[in-house]
C-alpha cells in the first residue's frame, strides 16, 4: 500500500535542473553542474579571502568574528547546495535548523558562565 503522504513517481531520469513530481519524487531535483561549480568557486574564494584577511591582521580584535562569519557563509553554501537543503523536505530543514538552535543554546549558556567569572560586580 502506497503512503498517501508521498507522491508516486516514475524512476525515469529527469533533465538537469528540473524536479520530478515534487520533493518526494523518486529522483527529485537534479543539479546543474554549472551551478555546483559556481558554488565550489564561491566557497574556495571565501577561503582565499579568509586567509588574506587573517594574514594581514587588518581587522585586529574583530578578526576572529570575521573568520567565523566567513566560515558560516561557506557552511551555508555547502548546506544549501551540496547538501540540498534548498530542496529539502520541511522536516529535514527543521532538523538542520534545530541542530544549529541547540548549539546556540549550548554556547549562550556556558559562555555566559565562563565569560563572566572574573567580572567584579558592584
Amino acid at each position: 500500500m502506497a503512503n498517501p503522504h508521498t507522491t508516486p513517481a516514475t524512476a525515469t531520469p529527469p533533465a538537469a535542473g528540473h524536479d520530478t513530481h515534487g520533493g518526494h519524487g523518486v529522483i527529485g531535483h537534479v543539479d546543474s553542474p554549472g551551478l555546483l561549480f559556481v558554488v565550489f568557486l564561491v566557497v574556495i574564494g571565501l577561503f582565499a579571502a579568509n586567509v588574506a584577511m587573517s594574514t594581514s591582521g587588518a581587522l585586529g580584535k574583530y578578526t576572529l568574528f570575521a573568520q567565523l562569519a566567513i566560515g558560516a557563509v561557506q557552511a551555508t553554501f555547502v548546506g544549501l547546495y551540496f547538501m540540498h537543503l534548498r530542496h529539502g523536505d520541511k522536516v529535514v530543514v527543521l532538523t538542520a535548523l534545530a541542530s544549529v538552535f541547540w548549539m546556540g543554546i549550548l554556547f549562550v549558556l556556558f559562555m555566559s558562565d565562563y565569560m563572566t567569572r572574573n567580572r567584579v560586580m558592584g
Partner: protein
Amino acid sequence: MSASTHSPVLKHHFGDLGQQHASERLGMWMFLATEVLFFAGLFGAYACYRLWYASEFEFASAFMNLKIASINTVLLVTSSLTMTLAIRAAKLGNKSGLYTHLLLTFALGTGFMVLKGFEYAHDFHESYLPGEGTFVHSNMQTEAVARGLDTGKVRLFLCFYYIMTGIHGIHIVIGLGCILWLVQQAYANKIPPENYSTVEVVSLYWHLVDAIWLFLMPLLYLAGAHLKVGPH
C-alpha cells in the same frame, strides 16, 4: 500501481520509494544533528580558552602548517563538489560518471589524510606536542618564553589542535570507508537511479565533515596568521 511501489530497491516496510528516500534522508540528518552538537562541545571549549588565553593561542597557531592546511581545504571542498556530482550521476543513471566521481572523492579524501600525516610527522619532529617533557625541546617553547607567554597555555592549544584535528580525521576515515562501500555497490550495479539516496546519505555525512573543517581551519591555522613568528 506505479514504478515507485514495485521497484526491487524498495524495502518492505516502506509504502513507496518517495517515503523510503525521505526517511533515509531524515534519519541521516538526525544523526548529523548529533554530530553538530558533538563538535559544538569541542568548539565551545576551544572558544572559551581562546578568549581567556588569546595571546598564547594565537602564538601557538602561528606555528601550525598553514600551507598544508590550505591545500587540504581545497582538497576537501573539491571532494564535496565531486561527491555532489556523484549524486547527479546516480540520479541520471550514469554509471561511469558515478564510479568516476566516487573514486575522485575517495582520492581527494585520501590525499587529505596523507597530507595530514605529513603535517603530524612534521609537528612530531619539531616537538610541537602538548606533553611538557617533549615540548621543552621545541623552538615554540623557546620563543614563548622569550615573549613572556605561559607555556602551559601554549600547550593547551596543542591539546585542542590534536583532539580536534584527530577527531575530524577519524570522521574522514569513516567517510572514506563509506565511499569505498559505495564504489563496490556501484560496481555491483546496486545503485540504479531510483536508489540514488544511498549515495545521498553518504554525501550528507561527507559534506558535514567538510563544513566542520571550514571552521577548524580558521580556528587552528589562521588564529595567529598575522604574527611574525614560527615557520612563516
